[in-house]
């Protein structure tokens, strides 16, 4: 609000006015701030941001933002703020200013606020970043705990219930053989008991499969994806096609686990919430990233906030340097897309 007042009172260069106002913002040590012009060059940065980037404040004016602390992937978000005049938010992974040696990396959330001149045109952007490392650690702790819980349930089902069901089937077989030998009634029922136990084993195996993290199965990421599609068809009675490349992608184990979990959550949403009957999973490589599309014919939700599990899958994607989006609807198929870097970068 103060910025608007100052702008309205001044006839001078709005960016200079902004810089003057931003000075007040820039003394806040816990906030990384920068003022950039429409050509994405720094006009001014705060001391805290200069510290993070390992430079003096005087180094920045005129330098390209993307080459100093942000990646090309962020360019699209920053550019969008310039093009649309609407505020944007992005999250990146950077060294925290409080830890110079050794460097400790943390998550920063950036608000990108467009600044408008008297004509209403965007004349610059104000970047304000705050440290969300603790929050992200807590979030990832919650996700990890949930994944661990699922894994334990999956293991329990696989290692215990499956054996008991197999034992029941064998006992039923023994009963059938004994009844038959003694020419007693009930062989048919004993036989049915065996069949039911065998069916229960098949169902339990599919449920356990759905609960296992991908790394437990050892069949490779693509095999697990195919298996997930098969299980989806079997468990939910919907069509689930999968298209994958011939060769196994070079995913880090943590990526494989998270991507698998994300696809699983998307499928659960598609079937249980959106009522989809046709699903298609497509995984491919596109230059420096892996892309996964899950297309479905169910209901589209304009607000991602109401999509069950969307926040968790977004966090999971971010935790491995990726992103999730959802598009389509109103007469067209809905497509969930996930982008994941071919290698996780832990360095800004």
């Amino acid at each position, binding site marked *: 609000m103060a910025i608007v007042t100052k702008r309205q009172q001044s006839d001078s260069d709005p960016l200079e006015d902004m810089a003057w106002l931003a000075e007040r913002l820039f003394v806040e040590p816990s906030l990384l701030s920068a003022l950039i012009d429409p050509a994405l060059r720094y006009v001014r940065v705060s001391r805290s941001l200069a510290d993070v980037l390992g430079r003096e404040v005087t180094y920045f004016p005129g330098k390209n933002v993307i080459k100093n602390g942000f990646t090309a992937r962020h360019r699209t978000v920053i550019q969008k703020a310039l093009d649309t005049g609407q505020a944007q938010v992005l999250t990146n992974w950077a060294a925290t200013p409080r830890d110079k040696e050794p460097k400790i990396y943390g998550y920063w959330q950036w608000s990108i606020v467009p600044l408008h001149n008297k004509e209403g045109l965007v004349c610059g952007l104000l970047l304000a970043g705050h440290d969300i490392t603790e929050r992200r650690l807590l979030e990832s702790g919650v996700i990890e705990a949930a994944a661990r819980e699922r894994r334990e349930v999956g293991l329990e089902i*696989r*290692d*215990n219930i*499956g*054996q*008991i*069901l*197999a*034992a*029941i*089937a*064998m*006992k*039923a*077989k*023994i009963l059938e*053989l*004994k009844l038959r*030998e003694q020419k007693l009634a009930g062989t048919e029922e004993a036989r049915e008991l*065996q069949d039911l*136990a*065998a*069916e229960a*084993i*098949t169902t339990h*195996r599919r449920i356990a*499969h759905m609960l296992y993290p991908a790394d437990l*199965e*050892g*069949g*490779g990421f693509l*095999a697990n994806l195919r*298996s997930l599609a098969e299980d989806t068809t079997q468990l939910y009675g919907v069509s689930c096609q999968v298209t994958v490349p011939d060769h196994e992608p070079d995913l880090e184990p943590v990526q494989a686990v998270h991507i698998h979990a994300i696809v699983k959550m998307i499928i659960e949403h598609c079937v249980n919430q959106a009522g989809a009957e046709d699903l298609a999973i497509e995984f491919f490589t596109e230059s420096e990233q892996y892309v996964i599309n899950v297309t479905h014919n169910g209901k589209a939700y304009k607000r991602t906030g109401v999509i069950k599990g969307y926040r968790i899958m977004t966090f999971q994607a971010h935790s491995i340097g990726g992103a999730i989006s959802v598009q389509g609807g109103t007469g067209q198929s809905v497509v969930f897309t996930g982008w994941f870097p071919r290698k996780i970068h832990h360095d800004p």
Partner: protein
Amino acid sequence: MGGTSQGDPTRRVLIVTGHHTLRVSLKDLINLESDLTVGGEAENLTEARRLSGDDHMVLAIVDHLAFTDREPLRKPVFPENPHMPVILMTLDNELDQLKRALAAGVRGCVTKQDLAEELIPAVRNVLNGQRYISRELLVGIPARVRAAILDGETTEWNE
């Protein structure tokens, strides 16, 4: 129950699974066969390897869960008795698991949902020098490869 061959001495089978209930049921099922008897029960591979040294043990039935990262499925499964045939009880119908099993020299693979129906036929086939693979495990494998596997002509394959 089950045929007894004249003059055929009782053949001893080793059972390896960490699950007590499953072990008891396997034992009961095998002991119904008059020419077969459970000659040893082990909860894990270490224990099983100790028992496998018994020359009278003609076959081992091993739970796939007995194999771990520390004790992977590899050839020979029982170095103390390398020629003793092994039947693997498996839960998953994963092709990779079947490939690994055959590469390790396993002679039979039976899924747990088919144990009641297929275990005894599998034991008999394997004791007769043949391979036995559960029908479900062979689904999706090209007919030519399937025939080669069952004939024992291959321990691994490339589709």
